[in-house]
Structure formats: structure tokens, C-alpha cells
């Protein structure tokens, strides 16, 4: 690599500035999302209480799609969606609909909340019957 010692390397400075600007934007986004973060953690606790009887374990998740953040509550156990729906009801929550996500995952929309519950390893009905 040929070096050019006299160059001011403004491109490097600009890139570093861009990285910092992006970081600040992301941190601001997290601050703005604080109510959603609190809601996600509170709902997760509530779902774990409702799912304890069935041995269901829910986890808060945040997907960083910089500068945005997407929240969800995941259950990674191999479970049947109707069983998860029952846990949701036992947690004192209600669901509006279920819909498929990419891969095998099934999302469950909770009534009154923007954070979906995602079943990452749903057991399909025909397997349950078999």
C-alpha cells in the first residue's frame, strides 16, 4: 500500500463522525422507546406468571434495526400455539390474532399492546394429533 503522509484523511474523520452520529441517534431512539421497553419487560413478567403452570418461559427481545428498535416477547420452547394462547389468557391478557413470521415462527398479537408474542418453535396441530 502506498502511503500519502501529507493527506488530511478527511474521509476517515467523516466516517468516524458518521459512526458517532449513528450511535447518538440509536441511543436517542432507545430513550424514546423507554415506554415500550418498560411495557415489554412488564408483559414478559406477566406472561411468565401466567405460563408457569404450563412450564412456559417467555423472554423480552429487542431487534436492533439501527437506528430503530423492534420489540417482541419470545418463547423458544417447542410448544403448541393453543397452549401459549392459554398461558396468555391465564396471564390476564388477551390475544387478537396469530400470523406467521419468516421461518417457522408464529406471532401472536396481544390486544392493547404493540409488542407481539413470538413462538419460535411451534408444534403443528397434525403432529400433536399424531
Amino acid at each position, binding site marked *: *500500500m502506498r*502511503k500519502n503522509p501529507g493527506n488530511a484523511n*478527511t474521509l476517515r474523520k467523516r466516517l*468516524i463522525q458518521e459512526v*458517532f452520529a449513528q*450511535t447518538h441517534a*440509536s441511543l436517542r431512539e*432507545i430513550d424514546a422507546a423507554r415506554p415500550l*421497553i418498560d411495557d415489554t*419487560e412488564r408483559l414478559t413478567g406477566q406472561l411468565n406468571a401466567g405460563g408457569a403452570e404450563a412450564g412456559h418461559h417467555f423472554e423480552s427481545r429487542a431487534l436492533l434495526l439501527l437506528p430503530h428498535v423492534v420489540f417482541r416477547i419470545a418463547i423458544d420452547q417447542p410448544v403448541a400455539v393453543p397452549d401459549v394462547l392459554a398461558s396468555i389468557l391465564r396471564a390476564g391478557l388477551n390475544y387478537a390474532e396469530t400470523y406467521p413470521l419468516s421461518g417457522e415462527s408464529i406471532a401472536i398479537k396481544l390486544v392493547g399492546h404493540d409488542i407481539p408474542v413470538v413462538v419460535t418453535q411451534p408444534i403443528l396441530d397434525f403432529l400433536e394429533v399424531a
Partner: protein
Amino acid sequence: MPTLKQDLIDRIILDAAKHSAAVGAAAADLEAVEALAARLHATGSGPEHDWRPIATPHPDYVSIALLNYRLITAEEAVAALAAAGLEATPAEPTRPGYANDHSQAFDLAGYPFQAIVQNPVFPVLKAA
């Protein structure tokens, strides 16, 4: 167990650190692409000499290229690059995002980045 907010902040800071480290590691290449652009500008005033350094940081590397957005032929590009002392060989673009289906990329001997004519014109069209 960290809270969701703390986990997010940790991931953002880690991401920024990775990007910054990648920029630091690419410092010599960034300096080189800027110097080449300046040299190309200095060797002539035509559109074939109007090359812009471009770079995009990623967590593990920095995409770097020398781009010419003007309507020039690939031959004019090679000649302008040669006038600046660069040996350019036509090649497939190595970094997605800087080139489209019509772009012509060139490997530059001695440098790890490419020169790209984003929308090259054909000589016959240029003549018309």
C-alpha cells in the same frame, strides 16, 4: 441479568466500537483513496478525471471505492486512470451498493479497492 434497555445500550456501544475499529484499521486505505482522487483531479479537468472517494463503515470492514458518476466511456476511464499512474483492469464489482447492473468496475494494481464508473456510456453513443 441485564435489563432490556441496558442490553440494547451495550449492543449499540459494541456496534459503534466495532465500526470505529474498522475505520481505524482502514485508515491507510482511506488515505490512499483520497490521495488518488486528488491525483486524478490534478491530472486533468475533464469528466473522466472527476473521481470521488466513497467509503461505508461496517462492523468488520470498510467498503471503499473510487467512483466516477459522469457519463464517460470505460476507455476514457482507463485512460484517465493511466494518466494518474494507475494500472486499471476491468473486473466485476467487489462491493455491492456502489455499482449497478450497468456499472464498470476496475481493479487497481497495488490497491485493495476498485475504481467504478457508475454509468458508463458506449463510444458510439458518446460520438452521437
